[in-house]
């Protein structure tokens, strides 16, 4: 009887990732509904097992711990082979991954090795009988697709944040396991994992962009924009063409038709009226915040949240509030 639920507990550099808790929480939910156990798997260099307790607290009945120096860096081939072997022994109703950078790489490898169907970037799911159904956004988020996975074991890779980690303490019994193949024989080798050096985030990659326009009045006021970006920690600073033309910011910072085309999770437009040239470059951002003095400014038409007012006055307050909110997170 396939009833247990597998969860991959992602770690990097000896640290547990939030994705691990999301996967375990999701697995726990299914296990509670169907009556199986949650088996979370944690792999890494010696000492990674220290995190097992956290997985237990999130709902893992069993924590499969694979400690091996060859897993210090992400070792996709050995990891996929080991998980696939585990899943192939049967007994799993579903396997949960999270579509982080690592999960996106790992889940399809596992699915391919097991010849099981796979759903990625899952936002909603139900696991039942001999199939599972999922929702998964496609078409750059403009269409929601519902799929059925016809299989006794469903491999589901969740969109990050789709399931919020919850406490639901279970035994978290540690079971040491080893790699099914010699991990040093992997053809694909991660030679180095380099942490973000705190260097400026690229506009194309930053999940948050704080952008300034002529409403900032002068170059020195961009400090306020930079401060807000710093408060987010994962934000890049952008500017309008008017601003780069004035030389307040380098041309490489320009967002718009003739500059960078961006679509971050959050875009904060400060003192930007919303000329067509600018809107063309950022209107596909997921959430748009606009701060502008002129309540008729076109930017408000596409902003999710607008504040009418002087950004010189509002930005410091917002920066403080974001710092405060980040502290709690």
């Amino acid at each position, binding site marked *: 009887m396939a009833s247990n639920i597998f969860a991959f507990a992602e770690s*990097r550099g000896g640290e547990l990732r939030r994705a691990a808790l999301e996967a375990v929480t999701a697995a726990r939910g299914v296990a509670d509904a169907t009556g199986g156990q949650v088996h979370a798997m944690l792999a890494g260099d010696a000492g990674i097992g220290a995190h097992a307790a956290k997985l237990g607290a999130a709902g893992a009945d069993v924590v499969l711990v694979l400690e091996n120096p060859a897993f210090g*860096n*992400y070792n996709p*081939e050995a990891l996929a082979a080991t998980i696939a072997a585990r899943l192939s022994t049967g007994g799993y109703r579903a396997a949960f991954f999270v579509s*982080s*950078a*690592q999960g*996106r*790489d790992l889940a*399809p*490898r596992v*699915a*391919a090795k097991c010849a099981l*169907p*796979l*759903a*990625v970037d899952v936002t909603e799911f139900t696991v039942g009988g001999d199939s599972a159904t999922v929702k998964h*956004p*496609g*078409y*750059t988020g*403009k*269409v*929601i*697709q*519902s*799929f*059925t*996975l*016809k299989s006794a074991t469903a491999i589901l890779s969740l969109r990050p944040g789709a399931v919020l980690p919850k406490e639901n303490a279970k035994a978290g019994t540690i079971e040491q396991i080893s790699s099914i193949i010699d991990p040093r024989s992997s*053809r*694909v080798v*991660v*030679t*180095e*994992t*380099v942490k973000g050096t705190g260097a400026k985030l690229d506009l194309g*990659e930053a*999940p*948050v962009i704080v952008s300034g326009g002529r409403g900032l009045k002068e170059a020195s006021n961009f400090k306020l924009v930079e401060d807000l970006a710093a408060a987010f920690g994962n934000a890049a600073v952008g500017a309008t063409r008017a601003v780069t033309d004035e030389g307040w910011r380098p041309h490489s910072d320009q967002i718009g038709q003739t500059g960078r085309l961006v679509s971050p*999770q*959050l875009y904060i437009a400060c003192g930007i009226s919303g000329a067509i040239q600018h809107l063309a470059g950022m209107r*596909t951002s*997921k*959430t748009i*915040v*606009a701060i502008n003095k002129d309540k008729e400014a076109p930017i*408000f*038409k596409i902003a*999710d*949240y*607008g*504040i*009418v*007012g002087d950004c010189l*006055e*509002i930005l410091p*307050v*917002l920066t403080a509030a974001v710092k405060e909110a*980040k502290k709690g997170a």
Partner: protein
Amino acid sequence: MKIAVLIKRVPDMDVRFKIAASGTNIDESGLKFDISDFDGYAVEAALQIKEKQADPAASEVVVISLGPDVVQETLRKAMSMGADRAVQLKHDAPVHDSSAIAAALAAELKLGSYDLIMFGRMSIDTANQSTGPIAAELLALPIVTAISKLEIDGGKVKARRELEGAYELIECPLPAVVTIDEGIARPRYPSLKGIMAAKKKPLEVKPANVASERYTLDKMELPPERAAGRIIGEGKDAVPELVRLLKEEAKVL
């Protein structure tokens, strides 16, 4: 160096989609189609690798697409960028199961003895992100996914993958499969010269062997309409409400 690039024809995303009456497809009327973004980066990256070879003419970039005859247009586009020849794996019905697609592609790829097989990290429409890895598994080749930098050096792939707040440097031996993320290379704009030349390049049509699907599409729907712009207040007093909304509603904080 023999390189295969697998490409997909997708609609332009900068429109508001409508769902077709069937409920399992978008309404394609009036839509423009083009090569999927990540696949376009892959074609560009392949061309750059070819151009960097000591004797580019000895290298070959082959583009392959699975689908009905309209994909020939997409294949021609890739050839207008510079790909040498194309293969259409003809299959008229839509396929959603990455395993089924990957199997059909792998069967073709096996025949080509490619040194490097390139995919986009995902197709921008269905976004399943799995076809490349599954094909690699079926071909028993090493795969490096979602890479933003790629170098071929001494029979080795040297790549970089972006992580959340970090990146990895990865190596694997050739032959190999890679899937391409953005940031690697901006696809070149085909010149008219390229478009003319592409008309004369070979495009081979073969039937695709698509197995039954275990991953099926039940329904497509549109997400809830994004609320029209909302002014939440004036001046700095509105900041607490903004922060609350960013946290609770937009979930970006």
